[in-house]
């Protein structure tokens, strides 16, 4: 069985970061859920803070410095994405959005995504559904229906006793694992392969269309 790869982007700014803690929980639980389905998976975590300057430079120059390019390719080639951001001013952080903005707009099409977010209090929890989910819908990613929100209190005894964080993580991870299991392993399509930009077995004449009589 092909090993699957999960890319994790974590938009937290502090270190240690509760965004990263949530991201790690989601990743570990997804790997566990996949293992229960006899699917091996590995995880690549991208801490966006490490790429903050590169992301800005990418916006200004139009190209990704080498390290950032590696991170971007990690996302492109992954079987699934776990995307976790702190909630800033009712939405994803600017750094998180900036990273999404330097991706190819088609790169996430059809990719299973598990959304995570964290903030100081549970009053921000709907930001996942009104702010973050539309972003991934726009990009034609396939975000699983459960998004996992963690408030500061979830990390101690003051969290939700009825649906504690561990349960919510498990639910989201299970949905992501099922989405991964339903799909074939991701393959990267080479944009410079004529079969991809012309179509299999086609030649430039097809781009010319009626002009070349093909």
């Amino acid at each position, binding site marked *: 069985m092909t090993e699957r790869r999960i890319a994790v982007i974590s938009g937290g700014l502090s270190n240690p970061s509760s965004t990263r803690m949530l991201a790690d929980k989601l990743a570990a639980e997804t790997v566990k859920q996949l293992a229960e389905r006899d699917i091996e998976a590995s995880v690549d975590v991208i801490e966006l803070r490490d790429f903050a300057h590169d992301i800005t*430079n990418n916006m200004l120059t139009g190209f990704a410095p080498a390290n950032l390019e590696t991170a971007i390719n990690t996302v492109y080639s992954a079987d699934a994405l776990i995307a976790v951001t702190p909630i800033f001013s009712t939405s994803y952080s600017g750094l998180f959005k900036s990273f999404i903005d330097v991706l190819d707009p088609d790169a996430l099409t059809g990719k299973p995504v598990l959304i995570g977010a964290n903030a100081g209090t549970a009053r921000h929890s709907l930001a996942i559904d009104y702010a973050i989910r539309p972003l991934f819908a726009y990009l034609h990613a396939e975000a699983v229906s459960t998004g996992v929100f963690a408030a500061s209190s979830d990390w101690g005894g003051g969290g939700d006793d009825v649906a504690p964080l561990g349960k919510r993580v498990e639910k989201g991870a299970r949905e992501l694992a099922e989405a991964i299991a339903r799909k074939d392993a991701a393959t990267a399509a080479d944009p410079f392969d004529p079969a991809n930009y012309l179509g299999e077995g086609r030649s430039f004449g097809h781009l*010319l269309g009626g002009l070349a009589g093909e």
Partner: protein
Amino acid sequence: MSEQTETSGVQFGLFTVSDITQNPVTGETPSERQKIKDAIRIATHAEEVGLDVFAIGEHHNPPFWSSSPTTTLAAIAAQTERLILSTSTTLITTNDPVKIAEDFAMLQHISDGRTDLMLGRGNTGPVYPWFGQDIRQGLPLAIENYALLRKLWDEDVVDWEGKFRTPLQGFTSTPRPLDGVAPFVWHGSIRTPEIAEQAAYYGDGFFANNIFWPKEHYQRLIELYRQRFAHYGHGTPEQAIVGIGGQVFMRANSQDAVNEFRPYFDNAPVYGHGPSMEDFTEMTPLTVGSPQQVIDRYAAMRETFGDYQRQLFLIDHAGLPLKVVLEQLDILGGEVVPVLRKELAKNRPAAVPDAPTHAARVKAVYGEGPAREARPGANRGDNLTAGSPYQDTPAPAGAAFGLGRKEA
């Protein structure tokens, strides 16, 4: 007879954007008139210092001035003798292909064959709607418009119907290309495999601007172009016609170059206020330093791209004053290019073609024989029914309305 440059293997030259940028050191912003005159002075000086090519961009909004490249190039042609006039790029998406065919055939005649051009799709979104086009059709426009441009140059009488332009029946683009040989065409692209495919399909040249991004970004496109050039039967991949750009700033002492260029870099429209100059010079082909550093960097380009035919440098943007640009040209022509010519000639396989010139392309068509000199017949309204509109050629098959010819 057409002028011929003495160069063979690789042509060296300048390409210019035509930006009017405030000089960040003096705070002055030159006028349009001054920058236009400066460009002509830079081009003539490029010839004086021994460069081969001057290419100019096309823009339709401030702070750029070059909206009408063939006008500028014609003025330069009148003041030079060897320099090849080219573009970087001519917008194949939003210009009428008929006007491109006419303008560049004109320039060929004016310049005695010292004309080629580079086609591109442009990078200013609003230009599409300003010229009545839809940017989402950028690629189909580039493909269809070029197909028409080719036809207008290759056939005296054209019938045409496409998606984007009003149809043509029995149209002749005048003047006919000089010596019956159309200007050489480069296709410029930095990310689009279909454009590499287009260049390969026609056996035209392919140019990667090789500025602003790491050179590896262009490498895959050039490699694709080379493979597809061979696929379409024009020769081996090594025989494809490749041009690249580059960007340099030089002083005898490397640190002087760094100090002097830094304010221009830091405030440049494209990359200013972004990465440090040190990071940017490491990541991209921009080289700021001594002439020897430029030589070392650019002599090694062929290791990435294979042996190529044209090397253009960007040296005049970001508000650099004329005096500095002319000094850069002196260094480029005096110290750098002569060495690069020797370096790039070393171990260059015999099968790699020389850079295209009009004279060589005429010779390839006619050998030692006389080239075409187009002479129109008197037009009594029967050009299309009584044979060719030109006295010197038999009417081509498939001309307007498909009417038969009576000639032998």
